[in-house]
């Protein structure tokens, strides 16, 4: 040991490792009383060119529009019409019905894997409606609402999930890792977080080209710990890229609660502040709030004011995926205790309060939607499911890797006899 003239004053107490733990585990009573929920309508709505420093507190609050009575209140209430809201409700209901059917299809062995959105439907459905055609999303596996709300055909999604003969991705990708440039939906990666910095690059390219289109990056709470989250913030901050950086905080990363990724910061939105990026936290189960905050951030980007980080506070009600069983790591009733409620029910109530919706219309819509989903499913299944019926060709293994197939792949394809 190096000799040092000074010696320790008083021998300090031994250090201890701090490992964050959720407050409850299976067997405990779920308790969200420590989660501070600001009243709907209570958070200010600054101008889009506000100095990031002056709106710091938006990163530590929660922007909410729908109150307990189902009314839309406060400066973020927005101006969506009855029609638009009904459409939004239908999108969320469609996504939920779609999820339920595909979840079941997986259990029936029609595909290998599925991931649902239960409880988080508002986030992607509402955000999509705030975008313009031509804008590009860089989603994770949990933003199918971006497709549904943009009118992407469900049957194409199912073809992908089934890896059948009409699968637009020719069987190459895991179910739910869709791609649709036409619908502003970048090809989903199985490697977490990589898309976040790609979104920034796409946005930079739009700025380089003097275009007016903007990008939206998507990431989960857990994945903010990955390196590319940092790269994205660094580049977005430096080049003032026209991008909205969306963090979907659904409280869990598989079995790991958000406290592990978040550490000592109060919120994920706070991360943006370290880069001088305006950061907003929003009630992710409130369709109107998501839409209004999305609009605000998108307008900022399109006005060349640079990036915005948005944290959507929501809850992953379902399992992480069909390979997961959450009862092993969190109380079963936790989702019922979640204080921000259910996005579908909340928008339904709001529309009802507005006089634009009713129990009957809801039931009717539910039935219609189920029909649509089922008929899409039937249509898709005509073209095969993972283990039966039509399937992509073994040639597709070799094709489409390069624009022109190099000689070694041609030799291998020949060997494969396809």
């Amino acid at each position, binding site marked *: 040991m190096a000799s040092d003239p000074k010696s320790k004053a008083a021998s300090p107490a031994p250090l201890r490792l701090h490992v964050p733990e959720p407050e409850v585990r299976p067997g405990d009573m779920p308790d969200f009383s420590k989660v501070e929920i600001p009243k709907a309508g209570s958070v200010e709505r600054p101008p889009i060119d506000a100095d990031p420093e002056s709106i710091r507190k938006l990163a530590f609050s929660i922007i909410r529009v729908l109150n307990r009575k189902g009314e839309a209140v406060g400066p973020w209430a927005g101006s969506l019409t009855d029609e638009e809201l009904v459409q939004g409700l239908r999108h969320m209901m469609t996504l939920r019905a779609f999820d339920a059917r595909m979840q079941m299809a997986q259990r029936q062995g029609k595909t290998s894997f599925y991931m649902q959105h239960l409880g988080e439907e508002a986030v992607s459905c509402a955000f999509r409606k705030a975008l313009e055609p031509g804008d590009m999303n860089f989603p994770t596996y949990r933003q199918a609402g971006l497709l549904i709300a943009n009118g992407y055909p469900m049957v194409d999604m199912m073809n992908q999930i089934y890896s059948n003969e009409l699968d637009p991705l020719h069987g190459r990708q895991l179910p739910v890792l869709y791609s649709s440039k036409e619908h502003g939906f970048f090809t989903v990666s199985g490697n977490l977080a990589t898309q976040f910095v790609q979104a920034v690059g796409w946005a930079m390219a739009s700025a380089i080209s003097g275009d007016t289109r903007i990008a939206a990056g998507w990431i989960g709470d857990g994945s903010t710990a990955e390196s590319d989250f940092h790269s994205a913030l660094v580049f977005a901050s430096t080049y003032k890229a026209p991008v909205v950086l969306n963090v979907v905080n659904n409280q869990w990363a598989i*079995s790991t609660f958000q406290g592990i990724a978040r550490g000592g910061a109060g919120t994920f939105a706070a991360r943006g502040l370290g880069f001088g990026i305006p950061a907003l936290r929003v009630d992710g189960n409130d369709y109107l709030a998501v839409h209004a905050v999305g609009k605000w951030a998108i307008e900022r980007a399109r006005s060349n004011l640079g990036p915005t980080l948005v944290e959507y506070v929501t809850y992953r009600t379902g399992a992480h995926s069909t390979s997961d069983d959450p009862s092993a790591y969190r109380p079963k009733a936790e989702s019922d205790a979640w204080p921000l409620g259910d996005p579908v029910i909340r928008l339904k109530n709001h529309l009802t309060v507005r006089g634009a919706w009713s129990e009957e219309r809801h039931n009717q819509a539910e039935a219609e939607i189920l029909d649509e989903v089922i008929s899409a499913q039937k249509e898709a299944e005509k073209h095969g499911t993972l283990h039966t019926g039509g399937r992509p060709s073994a040639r597709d293994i070799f094709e489409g890797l390069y624009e022109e197939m190099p000689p070694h792949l041609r030799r291998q394809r020949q060997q494969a006899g396809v």
Partner: protein
Amino acid sequence: MPRKTMIEAINDAMDVSMKRDERVVVFGEDVGYFGGVFRCTAGLQAKYGRSRCFDTPVSESGIVGTAIGMAAYGLRPCVEIQFADYMYPAYDQLTQEAARLRYRSNGDFTCPIVVRMPTGGGIFGGQTHSQSPEALFTHVSGLKTVVPSNPADAKGLLVAAIEDPDPVIFLEPKRLYNGPFDGHHEKPVIPWSKHELGEVAPDHYTVPLGKAAVRREGSALTILAYGTMVYVALAAAEETGIDAEVIDLRTLLPLDLEAIVESVKKTGRCVVIHEATMTSGFGAELVALVQEHCFYHLEAPIARVAGWDTPYPHAQEWDYFPGPARVGRALAETMEA
């Protein structure tokens, strides 16, 4: 002797090591309370406490980077990367740091870490849950790379890896977790409880790094394989009736070249197989070594059977996987050459 799955054997190796040596710590994504998505670390947090087995943020570079710092301090971290496909964010720390600490500091700092990761396909995991990146490690001097093929070895090799003074990449063929798999995906898997290599001694033991095992003696031809492909080799030998000697390499680096050369000199023919993509795969190195050391004994070109040079597709998984039919064809061709 008790029979265990490979998961249980791996769990056992960590348990035994944590009990014997306070310096052994285990962490990674979902490995703490939940015990890992494949359950390999189940029960360890309850037994050894949260500061010796814990959940980490979803950050592979952070997992390996902190493990290196801990090893420099004097601990012996054994960390999990949830799938080998997700080791890339940690590749800088693994190859530029872990692999070179000892060398660049002339032994002032060392890096006794183990990085466990499930590899290989066969579970319909698509291109991001199926990869076999072993060649990306064997090219990096300063690392050791291990691929067990059964519970008995898995425990002994993992204990040896944890006790090794240098960084070890420990690749777990996930298709073998519950039973030996020979590529006949349409047949039910035989569980390890029915296989003698499922016998795992309860106490501490090691299987030394750098020693191959002959899984089938034969005189016609030598098959070099590791992990899942060991069983494919055995199936192909049975099905073609070719009297192949099947060598399970167990450790790719350091490699048991002696065992390989001895066998090929005896048989005069060699087929190298792996699941990873062919070009620049570890099979290329094996071919290069065999032709260098056994040139005058070779009666036919050394054949390689490997994953096609594409990402691992989801739906066409079984057209991609180099199963017994493809391996069998190579055996036959090599015999006829």
